């Protein structure tokens, strides 16, 4: 689909703190057509969200799970064609940005506020695939060359 006819935003986060942070950022996309993807069932319902998709979880020690996650994300991206993908992590979010960038989306990585002294590994890997690459701590942002633009805390 040509970029200009894309409409929706995809917001991705692993279940747990990453998801809680994403939820606090919702005012940023108020009024947009948003889809959500997360790794824990029940979270989207609890937040009363429409257009929520479940994706399998993975971490960097689980090659097979990473493939499953990547396949699910690819299928989702091809189906909904987001123009912007935003993630607070973790690895499933990185995978969404890597694949999404290839498919023509604009991308945002927001490193978790948990990473107060150094950026996460996934965040470091996300740099090349991010149009907006953020740390929520000024000292970390300075250390790695990311943007600091506030934090959820």
């Amino acid at each position, binding site marked *: 689909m040509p970029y200009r006819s894309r409409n929706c935003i995809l917001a991705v986060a692993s279940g*747990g703190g990453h998801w809680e942070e994403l939820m606090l*950022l919702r005012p*940023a996309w108020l009024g947009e057509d948003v889809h959500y993807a997360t790794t824990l069932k*029940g979270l989207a319902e*609890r937040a009363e969200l429409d257009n929520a998709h479940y994706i399998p979880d993975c971490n960097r020690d689980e090659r097979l799970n990473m493939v499953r996650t990547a396949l699910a994300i690819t299928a989702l991206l091809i189906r909904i064609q987001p123009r912007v993908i935003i993630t607070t992590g973790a690895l499933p979010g990185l995978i969404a940005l890597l694949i999404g960038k290839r498919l023509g989306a604009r991308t945002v990585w927001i490193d978790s506020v*948990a990473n*107060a002294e150094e950026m996460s590994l996934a965040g470091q890997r996300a740099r090349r695939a991010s149009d*907006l690459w953020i740390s929520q701590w000024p000292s970390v942002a300075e250390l790695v060359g990311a*943007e600091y633009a*506030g934090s959820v805390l």
Partner: protein
Amino acid sequence: MIFATVGTQLPFRRLINALDEIAGERGLTIHAQTADPNYRARNIDTIAKLDPASFDERMANATLIVGHAGIGTVLNAKKLRKPLIIFPRRAALNEHRNDHQLATARALEGVEGVHIAWNEVELKALLSASDLEPATPEGSATSFQLIARVRDFISGS
């Protein structure tokens, strides 16, 4: 009722063992979500996994929350205005892949309602305190700032 949580990803035996012991000594009522299906405690109620709705219910009914130093735990305690004790995981004890929880805890020092126990002795002292300050959900200037930045990016995309 005290509610303890170790997050969705990994067990945290050192915390749960400490809570079990303290509950026995002091007669405290503690319900713990442990991420540890094989673990049985002596003095506290444990469950490995809670679905989000049940988790919310336990948090809402608690007078005090105790957790690993996970951001989900912190944000939930703030949202529900509960006093929170956090007990960071340590990589050296194989409790996590790195020490970012120690860094998180250092960064949270002084945040209203978030009380940090760096070891089991401090954990016991905090659990025995009678009037721990609750956390608050107030939106901060920095969170408005971050929202604005992301919003700005979206509208330019």
